[in-house]
């Protein structure tokens, strides 16, 4: 570990390292406990989010004069994990970092994160036991320690543009659900009708864009499919359930045209599609330009299901002020601040998963939507698939799946090729 650090300094900051060595005479002074500056990498650059973080940080620093600065450092979402790990490699790792669920296994299993159990359970008012078991499942290391706080547990839901549905002479989303037609086939039929009559798109799996394939889990879970076995050792892309799910998607894109095809974009929040699957946090993009509704994911052949996306906040174990960072994390996520954060990031606290709390902090959503969609989604949701070496697996799957996004694709053959590509990386 020591040699890695030395080489890091030499390789990626050669000039800085030499300059500092010359100035400091080769010895690193200990950081004085009274002058701690913390930095947390985040992937939001939303001004409201950052203002809330800053206000929590200011409140913390008032009671902790030893911490003189807390900076929230937004990194672009697209390259977030790459930028974060490059910072770690370059010897400029943040003290705290948001970590996406698909990168969680790499961070959790590498030992890069500080165990948090002692810090978070030290204060009885923190309510460590209040953290939902399912929400924290992804963030325990091999010894069972919690190494990141799952600060955002956001269910994937379906937004519907009722105006577009009416324009196409179709029932609204709520009426579809009341009629017992809230399933993928019905949504695809409605999407095709909207497309043919209005020229707008049918249903959009937001952020998929024929590259971010793991977002398709919000569809294939309805068929009971999964990309790999529960132990992560065996590829199941070629399972019959997965083949059926991809046949549905392929049919939607190329035959029914109920889903925009490759290279075609449609933004639900700009009124360009009838439905979109995304996380509830995107509700903030709605501007009131059209009548909309929020529903759970449609049923698949296997029945009801739900999926959640998660982000954790971890403390980098090698940081100079790791314990101070963990103490700040305990404050940042205590019950009071968790309630404030809940207006943007659904909390993992059982006591706050109720209509009162979430309705008070989410003015865009109705109490009914929160009760019927958000809370059940969080309570029953399965976390989006993740695996160690997720970036490499993701690239291999993306590359192999490209053959499927043509009109005359061999779907079972392509999914078999996906397994051939990722088998060496699993297990």
């Amino acid at each position: 570990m020591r040699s890695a650090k030395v080489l890091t300094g030499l390789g990626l900051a050669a000039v800085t390292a030499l300059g500092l060595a010359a100035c400091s005479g080769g010895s690193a002074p200990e950081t004085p406990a009274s002058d701690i500056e913390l930095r947390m990498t985040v992937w939001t650059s939303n001004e409201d989010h950052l203002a809330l973080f800053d206000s929590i940080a200011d409140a913390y620093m008032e009671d902790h004069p030893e911490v003189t600065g807390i900076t929230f450092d937004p990194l672009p979402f697209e390259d977030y994990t790459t930028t974060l790990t490059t910072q770690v490699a370059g010897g400029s790792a943040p003290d705290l970092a948001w970590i996406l669920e698909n990168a969680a296994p790499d961070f959790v299993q590498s030992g890069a994160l500080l165990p948090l159990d002692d810090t978070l359970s030290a204060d009885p008012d923190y309510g460590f036991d209040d953290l939902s078991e399912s929400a924290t499942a992804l963030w325990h290391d091999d010894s069972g320690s919690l190494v990141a706080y799952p600060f955002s547990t956001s269910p994937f839901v379906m937004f519907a543009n009722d105006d577009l549905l009416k324009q196409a002479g179709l029932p609204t989303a709520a009426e579809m659900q009341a009629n017992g037609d809230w399933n993928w086939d019905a949504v695809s039929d409605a999407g095709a009708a909207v497309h043919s009559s209005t020229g707008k798109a049918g249903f959009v799996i937001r952020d998929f864009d024929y590259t971010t394939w793991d977002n398709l889990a919000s569809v294939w879970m309805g068929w009971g499919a999964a990309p790999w076995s529960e132990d992560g050792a065996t590829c199941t892309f070629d399972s019959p359930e997965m083949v059926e799910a991809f046949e549905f998607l392929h049919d939607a894109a190329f035959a029914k045209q109920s889903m925009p095809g490759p290279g075609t974009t449609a933004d639900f929040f700009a009124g360009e599609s009838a439905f979109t699957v995304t996380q509830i946090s995107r509700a903030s993009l709605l501007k009131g330009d059209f009548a909309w509704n929020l529903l759970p994911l449609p049923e698949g052949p296997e029945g009801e299901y739900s999926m959640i996306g998660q982000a954790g906040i971890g403390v980098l174990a090698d940081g100079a002020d790791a314990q101070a960072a963990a103490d700040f994390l305990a404050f940042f996520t205590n019950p009071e601040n968790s309630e404030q954060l809940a207006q943007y990031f659904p909390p993992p606290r059982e006591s706050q998963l109720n209509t009162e709390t979430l309705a008070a902090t989410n003015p865009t959503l109705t109490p009914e939507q929160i009760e019927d969609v958000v809370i059940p989604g969080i309570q029953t949701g399965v976390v989006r698939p993740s695996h160690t070496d997720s970036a490499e697996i993701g690239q291999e799957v993306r590359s192999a799946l490209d053959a499927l996004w043509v009109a005359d694709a061999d779907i079972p053959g392509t999914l078999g090729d996906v397994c051939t590509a990722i088998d060496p990386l699993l297990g």
Partner: protein
Amino acid sequence: MADATTIPGRAATRPGVARTGGQPPRRRRPPAYARRDALTGYLFIAPQLAGIVLFVLVPLALVVWYSFNEWNVLAGTFRFVGTENFEKLLADPKLAPVLSATGVFSAGLVVFNLALALLLAVMLNRRVRGITVFRTIFFSPVVVSLVAWTIVWSFLLQDNGGINGLLQVIGVDGPNWLREGPTAMAAVIVVQVFKNVGLNMVLFLAALQGVPQEVQEAARVDGASDRQLFWRITVPLISPTILLTSIITIVGSLQVYAQIAVLTQGGPGISTTVLVYYLVQQAFDFHHFGYGSTLALLLFAIVLVLTILQWQLRRRWVFYEN
């Protein structure tokens, strides 16, 4: 003080001291002013030298060192693996398609960029009204932000984007440019050609304006046609600029990353995954820093060989090169 008969900087025989054959001449300590001059010279080049050492030689040496190691960034481990990364390189099934894509991309870029730049330069090397405006228009993409330029093109090249919209006007159903292997590579090449053609155009324009008028007039008097004038007089006289632009363009083509990342992410499949993109993927996305360094060495070797080859071949086709 130096002897008045001594040529500065050259060793002199001291008067009255005979040099004996077979013995090496005694080195004379340079005079003080020469040492001061030398010191001044070294001080002048010191910043540049320090820059080269710190920003070129040290990183280069470290890349070589990293290629013999494997580095797990998150776990913080650094392990010497000997030639393992080089063996992995030789056995990598993706290396051949990646090198093939790199070759196609570089060849396409060089041919289209140089041809178009020369054509534009010839067209804009005329004294017509408003010619400066046209020169500015063709040069302007060079100063536009690369990523912004590429993002705009990614929208234009979508299936329902501007290019296919224009094609539909004339009744042509355009392909899904960025989603089909051959068109994706062509699209990436065209976007890159339009981005940088202005730079080569300006260099060619300067070269064309340096072609002596009297040589061209003499050729015309001798009855040379426009075509003969261009190929037999103009091209040989601007051949040093062709050499320069071809080296710059080839080396530049081997370093293209952002355009691929924005337009195709190396796909469909790995049809547009060029060597630099593959290298960055391996090192920074997959955290295989050792293997990424090995790929960087391969890229370095390719650039070096191509540059030396071009430099050696210049004697064959560059006019007034000895």
